[in-house]
């Protein structure tokens, strides 16, 4: 139970970083924390205490394997999600550099040419 509360805490920290912070770099860090929180939730869902790696050893029955091995599917999903997060972070970092060149600042309060 406590680990799900940790995930919820991380989600809120990430959302706080995105919503409350004014610096683009801090917003990107907030997004990464939010992404990690989701990934952590996936991993926690598939985890078993003292579980074995999800590769069938030779001296074990299938039933016993299913009981002891950790669930491999969330790990595969998390790998995909990490790659997507990487795409977001890389693109935003490039965008931040370009915006610094145009606006001379990372402060989102000063980057306000679009309104209405």
């Amino acid at each position, binding site marked *: 139970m406590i680990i799900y509360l940790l995930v919820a805490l991380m989600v809120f920290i990430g959302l706080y970083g*995105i919503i409350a912070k004014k610096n683009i770099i801090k917003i990107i860090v907030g997004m990464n924390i*939010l992404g990690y929180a*989701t990934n952590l939730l996936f991993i926690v*869902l598939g985890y078993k205490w003292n579980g074995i790696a999800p590769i069938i050893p030779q001296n074990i029955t299938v039933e016993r394997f299913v009981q002891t091995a950790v669930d491999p599917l969330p790990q595969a*999903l998390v790998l995909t999600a990490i790659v*997507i997060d990487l795409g977001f972070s890389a693109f935003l970092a490039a965008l931040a550099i370009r915006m610094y060149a145009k606006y001379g600042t990372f402060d989102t309060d000063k980057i*306000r*040419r*679009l309104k*209405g």
Partner: protein
Amino acid sequence: MNHSIIFPVVIYLGGAFLLPLLYAKNDLLAGIVTSALTFLSFLVSVLLGLTVFTTGERILYFAGGWQKPLGIALMVDPLSCLFLIITNFIAFLIAVYSITYTKKHSRAAYFYVLFMLILAGMNGILISMDLFNIFVFFEIASIASFVLVAFGLRAEELEASLKYTVISFIASTMILLGLAVVYGFTGTLNITAFMRIAAGLPQTHLWFILGLFLAGFAIKAALVPFHAWLPDAHSMAPAPVSALLSGLFIKVVGFYGIIRLATNIFGSIPQIRVVLLLFGILSMVLGGLMAYGQKNIKRLLAYSTISQIGYCAIGLGIGGYLGYLGVLLHIISHAFSKSLLFLNIGAVEYMTGTTDSDKLKGLYDRMPYTTALASTGMFGIAGIPPMGNFWSKLIIIFSAVQAGYPGIAALCVLVAVITLGYFLKLQRTVYYNKASDTAKMLEAPSGMLAPMTVLAFAAVFAGILLIPGIRSCCLDKAVGVMENFSYINVDIGD
């Protein structure tokens, strides 16, 4: 096994991979290849449509040749096939238009790569029946669209792209969290298998999942509390991208998800309709009012998109045969008209270099043909009788009256008048007044006019879909999917 179902995705993914290797230096050839691939994909979706609409059957496909419950399930039914055909048809016209438009951009070949990635993502969403697969295609389409919004690298475009990216990241996180919750409760991500297990879950669990998914898709569909990114992103993107985003992207990536959630997956939860009605009314009224005061024509069109997607949400919220019919027809004819208008204003920007309604005057004298097409699109969205949007708005209003919401029907009429109002104002100040004497003729090149003309004809004749013989073989089947179909009945083995 009918393998043609995966082609709409494979064609675009393959094209996006090969294009930078083969034609990175040759922008013209890259554009022609892209147009050819979009047309090929359109043909494939029409062929799929012939099968799906004549038999009324679903086409089910398990990727990789795995047995039934194991492979990733893909499915085309009349509803998704309707979206597939419209998407690829409009994408073809936009690709043809881009060949001329991107002459002023450097490195246009990369524009086409991202363009095809968006299309791969959109088509992938339409054919997937696996939640994680939908998420991945959702992200492919989204990330490609962020880059395309910032493609011109002007300061405002970067700012719009930043806003769009950060808000979209929250959307995708909501959907991923929803996926994690689904997996935690049911141990599967296949929609059918999920629904079979979810039937035994407590109602509160379903509410939690529905809330997460609805927040994610509503951000993409830009329903009003979630709309802040849309006016910036759609007004700053290059014109073909605006047309793609406004005409198709928010409907396929955002609204199609909401349709499936509200009808086929969580149709048993009636409260979702109240939420949709609320979002719909807010979007319709606020979008219409905000559009009224805009100086930048592309920004006006972006707010108009929010207003029109509000109509779709209202129709979906009311439900029933008439409501669903109105939603589908509204989505189709609005896709035609709004893509036409964004391409049109792109042609004006291409020739004059501005989209500011204060600086443009007397366009009818200078670009008569473009002006005629613009008027067609504007009357189309405002709902002047022979156009498709007139019939769809009429049907949505009828359905509201029939379902006992006369207040909503009155609001729909009021916003239709507001819509006509801001478009007439635009025509008066920009198109049909006297140009300064020194102004020269500036007619847009024929490479832009040809696809716009096709779109204009499509927008005028979209109402044909309502003629009983045609309606019963395509729209009625799609409406039937929304009314009766539940993923729980799909045969995926045990």
